[in-house]
């Protein structure tokens, strides 16, 4: 029981960090922090990492750099490391170091306390995975510094000096301190005092660490990471977008040096502007100018890209978006315009200069004389460069490629079909193909500019998949490039045209999808773009603009699935590739979409496809808009599927279901008694949903959580109609954590401790299994029960017949399962050339007249009744026994206590048509009453 087929992802366009570099470091400092601390991929801290030759204002600690390593006193290296952050907005990094017998969990954050102390806080926990081998190792901290000072480390217990287990580390302290072996599980705190007054008694408590973590969480939740809201229906992309916005808010200064990365600081400035963070944008361009002056470069540097020119390019683009330049920026421009003339040697500097000059030449708010000089300069540079051709322009140098990409977009220094553009995209494509999508130079915009939106979308997902699981790239500037790419794919400026949805991934058109780009700055003034796709086949798009200089034309590139279009209510007959919209402050566009997936129908074809996992794979995330992980085992194929399923099997066996029947019957009696005493009820929310949720709570060993699950409504992954698994994820994180600590007997504790081939499940695997447990069978079981009640209430003869002989309820339910097919279809990825997304229609299989005689008729005595309502093959519903039990018990109680129930008004239900028969699908409400 699971995802419906209307939501299908492209095969490769989802985020699973498949190309993540092993070097993804996460900055944990607050915005404006003078101390930069990075958490590396192995959970080590790199404190105050910055190139020693750069003095930045506000820095008090000189140029020291310290590497801190956490581990076991045994010196054993971890077998595996898992790292994540719970919330992309909050840089609190969890690293789990898995050793042969222990798990060491480190939760790390930067912290500023009430006395303005600046600390790095580590909350650690050590678990033994198998039994309790002795003696236990202790938690050990080792460090190496470039300065002579010893770090000030404070723990919740005394720290003793010891010998480092790693000869490369200078010093070590052992935290767990006593001579006797450590108790396991053990927990503790270590904090590094980077700045501020000493800590009284030189001791901290675990509570103090918990408070520190809570206050950092609060701090980050209050930081405005983006003033201009942006929302897309892909949680993986959204999470990276949020992480990128956070990274930009943390500042452009660290961890990279300024000189080498002038281009990247420029990217920061732009991304900040796009996010609406104008202060950060100005600060970044100021920083580049200052950095340039500091270094004394203004022109013609041989070793690296000239920061000045990059600075100009950044400032210009910022001016391009903001519509104005500050006096300082204008001044800088005028002063440096002359110097830019000297960049005639081909290379990165000349390309940056070209980008900058082109942008200045077209920007508003630039004094006329500067603009004229810029245009003239751009022409001269272009003529000069053109003699070399693209390959000669970049010479394979990534820095030059980056500069040329910038000159192409946002520079627009060459026409989209110019040989220079074509050569560059070919060159980049060859690199990308060769190294598996390595985005040395992010090129999504260049592809979009060159008129290849499909490539642009692929490049966006490639860039996303190079990020690590904590939401960062090896180069911090990639965060900025990611922000820019996401926005540009939706809102793109091209000369005097505004192009909307130019690079919209087709997978973002699933029903319920929402796209919002709120008040994004463009060279025409800020615009807002909002799109929502309804449950049917209609996408509504709204443009709201505050033109400072209206574009000559607004074009919208309709998705390939578009069959009809209306602009401001007027039908458009024109079938051209672009819809031209009126240049107004407000425009509404409605698109009719075709939703045709290949559908496998008929009993034998559906059954065969269900059994053929090579030909019809399940191994893909089918709802990327809701969650960043796959639901398991349902979104996997054998053999991995069998391992995941084996974890759950004990909870769903027939014996276990038989054992819990009396407790489920008690719940059913209470529900039916309430109906009897009132005389009326709404069967969806007052009978079906409660019995389903309470039964699941009983079966999974978490009856105490049933009320919380009930509060989530019919779909736990769609709180308040918003398709988003984060509430479920937060619940799961909580119960898995409890399961690890308390070793309970519920299903979540079992999952938390489960192993596959001797390894524990990863965090995302756990979430995948847990999410499926909570959502599968919820809506489907509700629909089965409601469908049965709906039919019986409307057919008194059938109702009385069944009430007279309750032993017929099980076979009646088999028939309801067939007739209703509570999961009407399941998605698969078909293999082969004609492959792609397909739906396997259970409904059509169960109404196949060649297998079921008179399939539209409900026949309680149908035998055999080999329906595929629970699927077939490896993925056959694991909750089938539970689903049948909760339905049977509720129907039995209902027929015994209130045998004369009838409809009490019309139900709110989605009808489905199968071969001319109306079959109820999802019930939103089903009022019934007891006959007086």
């Amino acid at each position, binding site marked *: 029981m699971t995802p419906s087929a209307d939501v299908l992802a492209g095969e490769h366009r989802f985020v699973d960090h498949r190309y993540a570099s092993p070097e993804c470091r996460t900055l944990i400092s607050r915005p404006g922090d003078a101390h930069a601390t990075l958490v590396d991929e192995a959970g080590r801290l790199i404190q105050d990492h910055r190139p020693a030759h750069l003095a930045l204002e506000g820095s008090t600690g000189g140029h020291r750099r310290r590497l801190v390593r956490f581990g076991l006193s045994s010196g054993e290296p971890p077998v595996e490391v898992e790292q994540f952050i719970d919330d992309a907005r909050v840089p609190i990094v969890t690293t789990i170091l898995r050793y042969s017998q222990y798990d060491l969990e480190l939760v790390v954050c930067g912290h500023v306390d009430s006395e303005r102390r600046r600390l790095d806080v580590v909350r650690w926990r050590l678990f033994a995975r198998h039994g309790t081998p002795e003696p236990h190792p202790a938690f050990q901290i080792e460090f190496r510094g470039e300065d002579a000072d010893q770090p000030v480390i404070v723990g919740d217990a005394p720290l003793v000096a010891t010998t480092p287990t790693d000869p490369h580390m200078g010093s070590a302290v052992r935290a767990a301190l006593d001579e006797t072996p450590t108790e396991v599980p053990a927990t503790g705190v270590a904090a590094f005092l980077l700045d501020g007054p000493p800590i009284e008694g030189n001791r901290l408590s675990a509570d103090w660490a918990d408070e520190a973590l809570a206050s950092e969480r609060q701090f980050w939740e209050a930081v405005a990471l983006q003033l201009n809201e942006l929302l897309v229906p892909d949680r993986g992309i959204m999470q990276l977008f949020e992480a990128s916005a956070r990274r930009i808010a943390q500042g452009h200064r660290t961890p990279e040096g300024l000189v080498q990365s002038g281009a990247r600081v420029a990217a920061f400035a732009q991304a900040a502007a796009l996010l609406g963070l104008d202060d950060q944008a100005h600060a970044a361009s100021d920083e580049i100018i200052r950095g340039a002056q500091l270094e004394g470069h203004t022109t013609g540097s041989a070793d690296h890209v000239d920061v000045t020119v990059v600075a100009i390019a950044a400032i210009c683009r910022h001016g391009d978006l903001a519509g104005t330049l500050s006096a300082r920026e204008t001044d800088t421009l005028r002063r440096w315009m002359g110097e830019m003339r000297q960049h005639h040697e081909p290379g990165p500097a000349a390309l940056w200069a070209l980008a900058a000059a082109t942008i200045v030449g077209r920007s508003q708010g630039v004094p006329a004389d500067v603009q004229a000089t810029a245009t003239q300069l751009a022409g001269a540079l272009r003529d000069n460069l053109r003699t070399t051709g693209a390959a000669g322009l970049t010479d394979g140098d990534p820095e030059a490629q980056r500069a040329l990409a910038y000159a192409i977009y946002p520079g627009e220094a060459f026409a989209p079909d110019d040989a220079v553009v074509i050569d560059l995209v070919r060159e980049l494509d060859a690199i990308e193909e060769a190294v598996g999508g390595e985005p040395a130079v992010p090129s999504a915009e260049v592809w979009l500019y060159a008129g290849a939106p499909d490539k642009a979308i692929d490049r966006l997902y490639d860039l996303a998949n190079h990020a690590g699981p904590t939401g960062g790239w090896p180069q911090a500037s990639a965060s900025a490039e990611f922000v820019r790419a996401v926005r540009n794919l939706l809102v793109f400026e091209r000369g005097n045209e505004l192009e909307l949805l130019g690079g919209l991934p087709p997978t973002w058109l699933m029903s319920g999808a929402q796209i919002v780009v709120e008040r994004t700055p463009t060279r025409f003034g800020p615009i807002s773009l909002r799109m929502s796709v309804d449950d049917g086949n209609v996408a509504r798009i709204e443009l709201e603009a505050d033109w400072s200089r209206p574009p000559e034309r607004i074009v919208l590139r309709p998705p390939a699935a578009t069959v009809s279009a209306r602009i401001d209510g007027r039908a458009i007959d024109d079938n051209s590739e672009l819809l031209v919209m009126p240049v107004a402050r407000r425009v509404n566009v409605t698109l009719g979409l075709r939703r045709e997936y290949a559908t496998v129908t008929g009993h034998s074809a559906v059954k065969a496809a269900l059994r053929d996992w090579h030909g019809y794979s399940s191994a893909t995330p089918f709802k990327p808009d809701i969650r960043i992980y796959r639901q398991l085992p349902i979104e996997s194929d054998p053999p991995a599927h069998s391992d995941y399923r084996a974890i759950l099997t004990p909870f*769903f*066996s027939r014996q276990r279901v038989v054992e819990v029947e009396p407790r489920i019957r008690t719940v059913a009696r209470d529900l039916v008694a309430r109906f009897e005493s009132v005389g009326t009820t709404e069967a969806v929310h007052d009978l079906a949903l409660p019995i389903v949720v309470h039964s699941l709570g009983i079966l999974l060993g978490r009856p105490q959580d049933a009320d919380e699950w009930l509060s989530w409504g019919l779909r736990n992954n769609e709180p308040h109609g918003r398709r988003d698994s984060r509430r479920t994820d937060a619940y799961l994180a909580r119960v898995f954590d409890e399961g690890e600590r308390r070793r309970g007997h519920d299903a979540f504790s079992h999952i938390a401790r489960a192993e596959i081939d001797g390894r524990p499940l990863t965090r995302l695997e756990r979430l995948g299994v847990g999410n499926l447990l909570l959502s599968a069978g919820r809506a489907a079981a509700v629909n089965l029960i409601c469908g049965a009640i709906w039919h019986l209430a409307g057919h008194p003869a059938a109702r009385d017949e069944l009430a007279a002989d309750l032993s017929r309820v099980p076979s009646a339910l088999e028939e309801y399962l067939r007739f209703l097919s509570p999961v009407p279809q399941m998605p698969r990825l078909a293999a082969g050339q004609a492959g792609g997304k397909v739906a396997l229609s259970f409904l059509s299989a169960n109404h196949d007249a060649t297998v079921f005689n008179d399939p539209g008729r409900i026949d309680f005595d149908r035998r*055999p009744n080999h329906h595929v309502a629970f699927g077939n*093959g490896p993925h056959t519903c694991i909750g089938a026994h539970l689903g049948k039990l909760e339905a049977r018990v509720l129907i039995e109680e209902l027929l015994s206590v209130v045998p004369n129930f009838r409809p009490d008004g019309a139900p709110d239900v989605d009808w489905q048509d199968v071969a001319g028969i109306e079959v109820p699908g999802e019930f939103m409400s089903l009022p019934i009453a007891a006959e007086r």
Partner: protein
Amino acid sequence: MSTRLRVVVDRDECFSFGRCVEALPSVFVWDDEAKPVIQPFDSDVVALDALREAVESCPRMALSLIDDGRTVAP
């Protein structure tokens, strides 16, 4: 008559749906764990088609029909 025909139950895959027991109660009988045990059967009396159908009815593909070491169903 043939004695080469046998039915194998994969007890790990079996999920006690009971379709086999329903289809061919003379051959498939519940055991204590609600999984089928195979009763001795005479291949001359039990039709191959009926066996095949019962084996194929298993939603979990937990049953196999083997003829002289060769799987003939599902």
